[in-house]
């Protein structure tokens, strides 16, 4: 039908079909910068000068190191996915649907973790659970009189722990968003039928949520599997390799063979991600329940009764362990003179904060990141708004094509996106944006567009079309109606969506590691270099700075939008 419309156009009066042009523009962007590079990557993995070959695969998998990396990736990502969802679902329910004390505070706290670079968690837990001198380790062994230190962060377990505590917010956001949209009468019907609150959750809420839970699990898996910062900070000392760290090692080798090997491993990683994607769509393929009711009903609140206080304490403890302790550790590290000694007045310094605000390298990289992330977020949110309009307000043919491509793009491991862009955008095919900020902006958009888009789409789908029709019938033209009615109603979500693209782009590490040049280093990469090679304190100061920025922005927007801003 798509093609037929296109062909039929010359016969009629030539119509300027805005919808079609928009769809084509977005599809063209995604085809050039997403689909084509991926296809080329796959092509290169199988084809060399002498034609089709599996040599690269054979070479890659003769190294036990690579098998090990593959095993580590699958195990850590798989376990993080399971634990992440197991944490996120009850948490989303408790925070979103019950009368837990301080729900709003907890929600902000958990969502904020999403806005913080995951490798900050690795930095913190490295300090806390170092097998010899980890603060928490020493404290626990003193407390319980243990012969040795109980935890070792340089292990698979340690990796899973950090990955889980920093990637569960992805699942938390996805699940709680779906939970807030659910028609409360579905649960009420179960209660009226005599089911207890727990039984209701297990027999009604959980099954209805299943598609979003699967989506959340997928998101955690792909994020954890393609994470570079955490395994490289924790894994390097413990000699734990993952596919991502191996790929980046291969790229750093610099030779043509190294690049081929990296490509081949990347294709293997992509294959894993695609298998997960395929399985998840099989599970929830026919299970797209319509749970959004036309009227904007407030989800009913479950009263926890005697469980209210114990549950609040449990959630509070979780927040302390997972959010407060690591963040406080990083903040404290940034003020510590000698890392070997505990923080005291004698060991206190603001030297590293001074560095943060004066060293040119840090300021320049921060500016680069600010520019790249702002442009990516702004361009991304414009696409998100157009997509939201196309998906919820029109029946334009082919509107699901860009939607699908955006989803696939986000599901692709960061390292694969970056590698594919390097291979295709360095002039070989007429576009040379290698070593520029543009290539990073494009990479960020492909990776993080989905979160922003989902936020705007969900806000838009909750606005009944009749609200806009009422403006039209009142005499407003469609752009006036958009400005007066639609925009004010979705504005908080648009702002939220902007930040959901901006923040991860701002501190992005994996793709930046591959795409940076001398003039386009990003703050994430700078921080990572300080952490690994120079000074943990400076890295901590940068991380704390990012943390403060997140808190400030959140607070400011909450004030500006009168509490409507929420992510």
């Amino acid at each position, binding site marked *: 039908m798509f093609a037929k419309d296109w062909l039929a156009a010359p016969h009629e009066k030539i119509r300027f079909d805005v919808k079609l042009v928009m769809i084509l523009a977005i599809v063209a962007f995604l085809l050039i910068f997403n689909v084509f590079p991926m296809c080329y990557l796959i092509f290169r993995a199988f084809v060399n000068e002498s034609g089709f070959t599996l040599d690269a695969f054979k070479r890659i998998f003769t190294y036990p190191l690579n098998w090990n990396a593959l095993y580590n990736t699958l195990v850590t990502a798989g376990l993080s996915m399971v634990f992440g969802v197991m944490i996120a679902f009850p948490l989303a329910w408790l925070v979103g649907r019950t009368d837990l004390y301080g729900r709003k505070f907890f929600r902000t706290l958990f969502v904020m973790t999403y806005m913080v670079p995951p490798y900050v968690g690795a930095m913190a837990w490295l300090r806390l659970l170092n097998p010899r001198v980890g603060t928490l380790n020493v404290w626990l062994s003193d407390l319980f009189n243990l012969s040795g230190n109980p935890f070792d962060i340089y292990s698979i377990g340690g990796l899973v722990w950090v990955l889980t505590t920093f990637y569960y917010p992805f699942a938390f956001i996805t699940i709680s968003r779906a939970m807030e949209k659910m028609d409360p009468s579905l649960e009420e019907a179960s209660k009226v039928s005599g089911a207890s609150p727990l039984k209701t959750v297990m027999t009604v809420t959980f099954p209805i949520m299943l598609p979003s839970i699967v989506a959340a699990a997928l998101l955690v898996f792909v994020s954890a599997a393609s994470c570079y910062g955490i395994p490289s900070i924790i894994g390097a000392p413990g000699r734990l390799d993952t596919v991502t760290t191996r790929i980046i090692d291969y790229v750093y080798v610099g030779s043509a063979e190294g690049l081929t090997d990296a490509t081949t491993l990347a294709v293997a990683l992509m294959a894993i991600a695609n298998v997960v994607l395929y399985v998840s769509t099989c599970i929830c393929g026919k299970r797209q329940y319509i749970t959004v009711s*036309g*009227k*904007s009903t407030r989800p009913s609140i479950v009263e926890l009764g005697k469980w209210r206080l114990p549950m609040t304490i449990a959630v509070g403890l979780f927040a302390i362990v997972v959010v407060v302790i690591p963040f406080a550790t990083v903040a404290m590290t940034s003020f510590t003179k000698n890392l070997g000694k505990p923080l005291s007045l004698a060991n206190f310094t603001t030297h590293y904060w001074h560095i943060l605000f004066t060293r040119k390298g840090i300021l320049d990289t921060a500016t680069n990141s600010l520019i790249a992330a702002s442009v990516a977020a702004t361009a991304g949110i414009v696409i998100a708004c157009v997509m939201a309009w196309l998906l919820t307000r029109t029946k334009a043919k082919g509107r699901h094509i860009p939607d699908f491509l955006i989803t696939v793009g986000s599901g692709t491991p960061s390292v694969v996106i970056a590698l594919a862009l390097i291979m295709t955008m360095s002039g070989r095919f007429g576009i040379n944006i290698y070593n520029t900020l543009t290539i990073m902006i494009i990479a960020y958009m492909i990776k993080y567009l989905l979160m922003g888009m989902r936020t705007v789409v969900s806000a838009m789908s909750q606005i*009944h079309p*009749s*609200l806009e*029709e*009422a*403006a*039209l*019938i*009142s*005499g*407003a*033209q*469609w752009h*006036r109606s958009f400005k*007066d*009615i639609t925009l*004010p*109603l979705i504005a908080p979500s648009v702002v939220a969506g902007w930040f959901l693209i901006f923040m991860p782009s701002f501190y992005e590490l994996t793709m930046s590691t591959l795409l940076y040049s001398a003039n386009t280093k990003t703050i994430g990469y700078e921080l990572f270099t300080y952490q690994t090679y120079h000074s943990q304190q400076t890295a901590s100061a940068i991380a704390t700075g990012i943390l403060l920025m997140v808190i400030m922005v959140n607070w400011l927007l909450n004030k500006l939008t009168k509490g409507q801003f929420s992510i």
Partner: protein
Amino acid sequence: MASITLTDVTKSYGNVLIIHKFSEVFNNNEFVTLLGPSGCGKTTLLRMIAGFEKPTAGEIKIDNVVVSSPYHFVPPNRRGIGMVFQSYAVWPHMNVFDNVAYPLKIQRLSHMEIKRRVEKILESVHLSQYVKRLPSELSGGQQQRVALGRALVCNPRVLLLDEPLSNLDAKLRESMRFEIKEMQKQFGITVIYVTHDQSEAMAMSDKVVVFNKGVVQQIGSPMHIYNHPANQFVADFIGRINFIPGVASAGKIEFSGSQFMEYSGDKRGPVVVAVRPENITISEERGVLHGRLTQAYYMGDINDCRVDIACTCNHGDPALQVRVLTAGHTYGKIKTGSSLWLNFNEYLVFDHEEH
């Protein structure tokens, strides 16, 4: 104050025909109701008049100006129409005043003029004391009035109402009926009203258009449609009615159970006798049909009775039940289970239709 002329208006989505060749003229100041079961196409027709849907074929004129045809299409914002939506569509981020003032702001009227006209209209929809309230602080009925005020504030030529009362409780619904009707008289506008509730249609309309599956069944005044339904569907949809199958021959209609009634019409073969419950009287001595009283409910003003006829027929055949309404004060005069006679004061005979 406008007439609406529809000529062969057709709407289809792919192969699904929603409205088939609808032609009719709605006159100045007429209160027209589009009535039919859900999915019959009445809302689609309303939305085509508003301009939210483009007809697949046909022409729509408002005051003899073409607003929709295959060659010409006037968007909703330039049709000068007021509309009340089923979900009210009151904007949640604007207070009552801003909601109602919106159409005037679009017309760039002066602040003074806007204030004057909004206040006037809020008075007539009884919302003067809620000017500063947000929609979330209003009840369903009040939100409904905001929507009505907004639709009326710039003196539209035509007012469209899409099941505006279906979300209100029964009592409010009845009082709103009269208010809307009053409003129509006061403002002297053409109203097109969509509903599936036949009693709303009866109470308010000058003209009722009955739809079924996209096809007009009958157009006429409520009284005409009630008393002279064009077919079984209309007879069944408007009010309550009994359908008694029989076979017509010269001079009589024969029912199962070898009962028959006199018949002077010219229909022959399988027919259906349609008779409204209030048009049947019960007699203990003599009548057209013989039956047995099986149920009688006292409703105050009336008694709602069920009479089994054809009870002398073969065992195994389901007894045919007829609903009869009798005056309330006669309750208990005939015991349930006793046999009686039914007389038809008014009835219609339709050809038997295969459903």
